[in-house]
């Protein structure tokens, strides 16, 4: 049995809110978000660094939160799907996923939207190839990706000048 290890105090900004908590060193970031902060929009799909359902932004970069320890996020800014909307208004990416039917069961959708968010923050006019590359780490087993591509293209259009 592993010996008991003391919890570690971490300070993380999650969706703009500062959070200070004591966590087990072995706790994964995704467990921290879901179980400590009740932010259950971030999903656990494969838990093997494959599917990308757990994708969040860490200091603006898309990362798989099942493959980072919560203690590693100390001092970082994390954005989850709950942080995309502002003042009760859906983010243009969220709206586009709805308008273009970019989801079916929805399990992978939060991760896909955060991957799209990193892409569009760095590339305002992505080509289809750019989009495919940006979401290659997000597995979707329903849509066949066509409407996901359309949704991200639509989001890019709607975000022009934003």
């Amino acid at each position, binding site marked *: 049995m592993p010996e008991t290890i003391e919890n570690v105090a971490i300070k993380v900004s999650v969706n703009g809110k500062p959070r200070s908590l004591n966590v087990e060193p072995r706790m994964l970031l995704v467990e921290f978000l879901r179980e400590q902060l009740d932010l259950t929009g971030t999903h656990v799909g494969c*838990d093997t660094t494959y599917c*990308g359902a757990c994708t969040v932004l860490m200091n603006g970069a898309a*990362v*798989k939160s099942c*493959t980072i320890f919560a203690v*590693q996020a*100390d001092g970082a800014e994390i954005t989850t799907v709950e942080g995309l909307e502002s003042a009760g208004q859906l983010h243009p990416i969220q709206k586009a996923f709805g308008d273009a039917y970019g989801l079916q069961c929805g399990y992978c959708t939060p991760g896909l939207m955060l991957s799209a968010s990193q892409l569009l923050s760095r590339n305002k006019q992505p080509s289809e190839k750019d989009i495919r*590359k*940006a979401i290659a*780490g997000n597995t979707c087993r329903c849509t066949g990706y066509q409407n996901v591509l359309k949704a991200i293209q639509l989001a890019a259009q709607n975000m022009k000048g934003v």
Partner: protein
Amino acid sequence: MLLQLGEEAKLLAGGQSLIPLMKLRFASPKHLVDLNFISGTSYIKEENGALRFGALTRHAEVEYSASAAKLPILHDCASGIADVQVRNRGTIGGSLAEADPSGDWATVLMTLETEVRCLGTKGERIIPLPEFIRDAYTTALLPDEVLSEVIIKVPPRASGGAYLAFKRSAPVYPTASAAVRLTMEGDVCKEAAIVLGCVGLTPIKSNDAETALRGQRITEKAISAAVESARAAADPQSDMRGSAEYKRTLVGTLVKRAIEIAVQRAGGKQVEVSHIYA
């Protein structure tokens, strides 16, 4: 610190291999030392005809680096490793220090004159990459050492390289890969480096394939001879990614394409390359 913690301590770089291995209990280190909070470990510098990468430089940083873009083979590799999320975390130093037989960086960097700087309690050592990679998951690092920098000598201008890896989907390791670097004089190949990945316990440098090109005009015949030698040099295992025979055939095809692209690049042509997957 590593000395104090003993042999059951592991260094955590990007964590994109080590954390999954820990979840599978293939690795159960008693102590993890996270290197990510040490400042000044992520950089790309050009100095005295060499590119120097801090050990914690992320794959994505190499992918978007103007300095690294001068060697397109580095971009081939950096832009195709796994997916965006993994490239945002995974590091060049971590990849080399892990020495996974299916890792991308070691294969690519063996075609260049690459050295790694290892810092230990007794000072530092600079080790040529081929001596650093000892075996599968085994490097020349001593228990009290950490890989701190990767130093790549910039090859002559008439040199071109290419790295091609075939994988089943974005997030997985390649089934096979091939890295080629050729230095040309007109249409004659002066120097050749051909390294095969994922088809042995370490990257395999195929001397016979290199000999088949060195001093030759790059004709279809010369390429075929190099491909045959590369196939013979491969030592693949059958596994879930494919049978040994399949991988041997695949690596030959990758070598052929990589030679063709390396020739074009040596001639100053821009060719875009990334990992191939269905």
